[in-house]
């Protein structure tokens, strides 16, 4: 990502951001709300359009080209704050619709794949329920499994636990930690500092559309260089 900028109207959300994320790297982005971290992650799979600069995913540049967008998205999985499961489909259908429609898998193979990932997120018994019959934590785990069914190389998480009750946050984080241990490249926007400490290779702090600090987790938490980072950590770790 090179010199990326984006404006909402005249408001500059992303200010000339450049960064590299290596294969297998696990990156956690944090920062106060409105700092642009969600926008940044959404630019990576073109749910938002950047207006300046270049974004490359696996050597493919994100441009207006529909072909490029599709090629980039086929490498990316995305998990949303509000799950965004398809409420009119069962859990199993939520998982198989992508593989059957987009990857043109046979129904039977897609269902096997879906059950494999449902077992991974430890809710295979919910396969035939509808999303709204599940708890928030279960829904988010289904959403993770849905993305995994597309067999992406990179997973994007946009505040995956912010809409959850405390006791459900753990089950989702556990799933994400297992995923990290399997070697998946992950970019996670979250305020879960415990998660950042355990799995992240590097932690970013964003503020006002800039990346203020980028460091390994030990250094980030123990010895932050910037005033801004210290303030943020004070705020968030105080209670």
């Amino acid at each position: 990502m090179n010199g990326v900028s984006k404006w909402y109207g005249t408001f500059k959300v992303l200010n000339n951001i450049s960064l590299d994320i290596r294969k297998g790297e696990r990156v956690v982005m944090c920062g106060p709300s409105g700092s642009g971290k969600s926008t940044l992650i959404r630019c990576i799979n073109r749910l938002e359009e950047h207006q300046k600069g270049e974004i490359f995913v696996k050597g493919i540049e994100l441009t207006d080209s529909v072909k490029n967008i599709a090629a980039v998205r086929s490498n990316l999985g995305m998990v949303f704050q509000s799950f965004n499961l398809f409420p009119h489909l069962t859990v199993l259908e939520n998982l198989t619709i992508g593989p059957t429609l987009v990857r043109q898998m046979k129904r039977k193979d897609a269902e096997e794949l879906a059950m494999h990932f449902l077992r991974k997120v430890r809710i295979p018994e919910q396969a035939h329920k509808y999303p709204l019959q599940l708890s928030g934590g279960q829904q988010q785990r289904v959403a993770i499994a849905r993305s995994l069914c597309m067999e992406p190389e990179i997973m994007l998480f946009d505040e995956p636990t912010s809409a959850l009750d405390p006791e459900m946050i753990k089950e989702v984080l556990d799933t994400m930690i297992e995923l990290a241990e399997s070697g998946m490249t992950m970019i996670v926007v979250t305020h879960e500092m415990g998660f950042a400490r355990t799995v992240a290779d590097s932690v970013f702090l964003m503020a006002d559309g800039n990346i203020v600090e980028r460091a390994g987790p030990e250094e980030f938490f123990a010895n932050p260089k910037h005033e801004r980072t210290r303030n943020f950590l004070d705020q968030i770790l105080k209670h």
Partner: protein
Amino acid sequence: MAQSEILEQSTDLPPVFASGPVQWARRHLFSSVGQTLLTLFVAAVSARILWFVLNWAVLDAVWFATDPQACRDAAGACWAVIAEKHRPILFGMYPYDQHWRLVLFIVIYLATVVASLTPACWSRRILLPLWAFAVGAMTILMFGGVFGLPYVPTSEWGGLPLTIILFTGSVLFGMPIAVVLALGRRSPLPVARGLSVIFIESLRGVPLITILFVAVNIFPLFLPAGMEVNKLLRITLSIAVFFACYQAEVIRGGLQAIPRGQYEAAASLNMTYWQTTRRIILPQALRICLPAMTNHVIAAMKNTSFVIIIGLFDILTATTAVMQDPLWRQFYIEAYLFVALIYLVFGLALSSYARRVESWVAVGRI
């Protein structure tokens, strides 16, 4: 200890209110002097009206008579007019000795529709052959000209079958048009959006009668000489696009109710616009606007009666024509009540079916 606590709690039931018809009446009808007087007054008026209707419709009515004089001598309704005139009312000007074909038409139609609305039959393997057979059989029955059936041109069709054809045709053609218009109106492509808006707004701004008039009298002027489009087809398509313009706005409402996250989730799975629309957005949008869509379907059924102005004899127009008979003319109320009953049965069937579908949707069955 814990257990006894639970037991104690379970005896703590909500207070019980006296219920039953007597208590209900006391609370709702006779709670004060004013209420009581009002209740008695309304009861008296209702009884008077009911008594009048009962006398007219049942006690003093003439049920069977081949001579209208018997009806004139009686004080009540003349239901005999229906026995006398039901065939031209139901079947219009269709040749009298061929009416059995229309009975068969209606039977096949009702059977096909009932089967199509049953969830157990919802698969392409059942519905496609069923409709292919039904449409084929119904076309042969109506037109004839093969298998020794005399040919009957569309200009002689009439009555209930004509109403059914107009209604079913306009809904079957109209729904896909409505979906396309609704999608067009929300399309990111300016041309598609502009065309949809112009189409919807210009047709919605015009009375149905005008559209029918254009279809019948003006449209043929634009066709090259010698080319002709069947009048019944033109009328059906006119009602269909009129229906579609209203239905499109209903569906647009459903589309707007779908949260942005649904589009984003589909995009992140790399689904195309059409895949997203067909599998994610439309199924949810149509469920949301089901009640409002039912409304327009029922309206479309009654809109078929507008064809009176361009000389098609649907069931209502046929009745008007039949009741020109000077012998029976004065009993037009009974004849129209009969037709109203038919409309009512169809309308109630539609709305009760729609309610059932809504309840299926609510429990996630479809």
